[in-house]
């Protein structure tokens, strides 16, 4: 065993930082897009919109049953075909791994967020709907102003825990050879042969970020408890 030499990590820091920025950006985009889409998926199921509700249910069950790497491969294969069919007269259009990653993670996370929100929707008391009805609010207004704010409040700790998992999952873009934190580390490691130092550093970075984030979630969990329970 060779002596550990972490100076190679210091040299690679700017490159690793770029990789981490990509991981964080991917997490942020997938969080926003996934939450919006996921809320939509949950609402069509909750409102029992014909056809759409069944489609949403099937989509969520499908995505939650197959590994993320398989989903990434599917999108990497399908997105150029679909894009070509839409914009390029049916000829496959190269889309690139980065865009594929953003798309995949947004659509993949939507399935997981939608399950959280669907359960959150069920936890809102019947009286809330009746009161909104009595105030003659429209369905849209009821959900926008009465129901969804409560749902997000109740589910926020679970949504954030899920987002920490999402941040960890973004490391799997490694299989598309993208340069996220792990990708950056492995590219440097291939050049200088310092696998041990590079991967230990990456593990430490993830450990610090995710541990601090989950401490924050624990604090939030205590704070968001709605004081007056139904």
């Amino acid at each position, binding site marked *: *065993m*060779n002596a550990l030499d972490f100076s190679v990590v210091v040299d690679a820091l700017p490159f690793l930082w770029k990789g981490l920025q990509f991981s964080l950006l991917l997490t942020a985009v997938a969080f926003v897009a996934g939450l919006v889409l996921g809320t939509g998926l949950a609402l069509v199921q909750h409102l029992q919109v014909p056809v759409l509700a069944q489609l949403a249910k099937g989509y969520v069950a*499908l995505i*939650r*049953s*197959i*590994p*993320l*790497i*398989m989903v990434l*491969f*599917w999108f990497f*294969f399908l997105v150029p075909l679909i894009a070509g069919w839409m914009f390029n007269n049916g000829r496959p259009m190269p889309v690139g791994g980065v865009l594929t990653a953003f798309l995949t993670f947004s659509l993949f996370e939507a399935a*997981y967020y939608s*399950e*959280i929100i669907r*359960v959150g929707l069920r936890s809102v008391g019947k009286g809330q709907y009746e009161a909104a009805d009595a105030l003659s609010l429209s369905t849209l207004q009821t959900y926008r102003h009465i129901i969804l704010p409560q749902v997000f409040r109740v589910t926020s700790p*679970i949504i954030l*825990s*899920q987002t*920490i*998992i999402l941040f*960890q*999952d973004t*490391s*799997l873009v*490694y*299989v598309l050879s993208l340069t996220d934190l*792990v990708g950056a580390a*492995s590219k440097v490691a291939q050049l200088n042969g310092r*696998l*041990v130092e590079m*991967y*230990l550093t*990456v*593990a430490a970075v*993830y*450990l610090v970020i*995710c*541990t601090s984030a*989950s401490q924050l979630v624990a604090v939030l969990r205590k704070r968001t408890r709605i004081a007056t329970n139904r």
Partner: protein
Amino acid sequence: MFDVLFQPAIDGQLYIQWLLSGLMWTLLLAVGGWWIAFAIGVLVGVGRTSRNRAVALAARLYVEVFRNIPVLVQMFLWYFVLPELLPTGLGDRIKQMPPPWGAFFPALACLGLYTAARIAEQVRAGIEALPAGQDEAAAALGLSPWAARRHIIVPQALRLIVPSLTSEVMGIYKNTSVALTIGLLELTAQARQISEATFQTFGAFAAATIIYLLLALVAYRLMLWIDRRFQIPGSAPARKARRLPILRRGGAL
């Protein structure tokens, strides 16, 4: 669509045999990893609720470390880093293991210990959900803390958490696909190989996806059966309240 599966590959086998061999490694990894995860998970989960400060702290450290590093990175630590950190002789022995096993054992350790951290948290939640009277009654009967846990607390806690363990079972079989990054030819890797060899990407991926869906169905049914079989008598009406933890996701994939 699936006719590609019945064409011969360069090694003389049919492509479907590639897929089935991938399925075998996926199952071996998932089932083997599960038992490691369950055994360590229960121990660490009990440790989390120990009154002994040192034990509780050690258990907490275990959970934080293994839960807060991505599975992919842990996979690399087991495969690339660990053999370098061990004494040279032992490290070389690990590196020289014949092909499938050289990737299989690190993957097994990785998935087992990662999932154990998640199971430990479920076990802890189960123990904390039990009424304090259980502990007090055990003490009143003169049971030692160890005996109380062994005979009274853990058996009840495990039966309580079966629904939330379902998502961990689903998690571990999905996480097996991460092993392809260290060269194990499990199901996803084989699907990709077939696609690269034949350009029949759709058929290859669809076949693998259907197998994963069937696995999910089997896992779900099995856990439902276990839940019914071992349900604490008289506790059925309380089941609805326990739905939420199912959602906590079983890991990366």
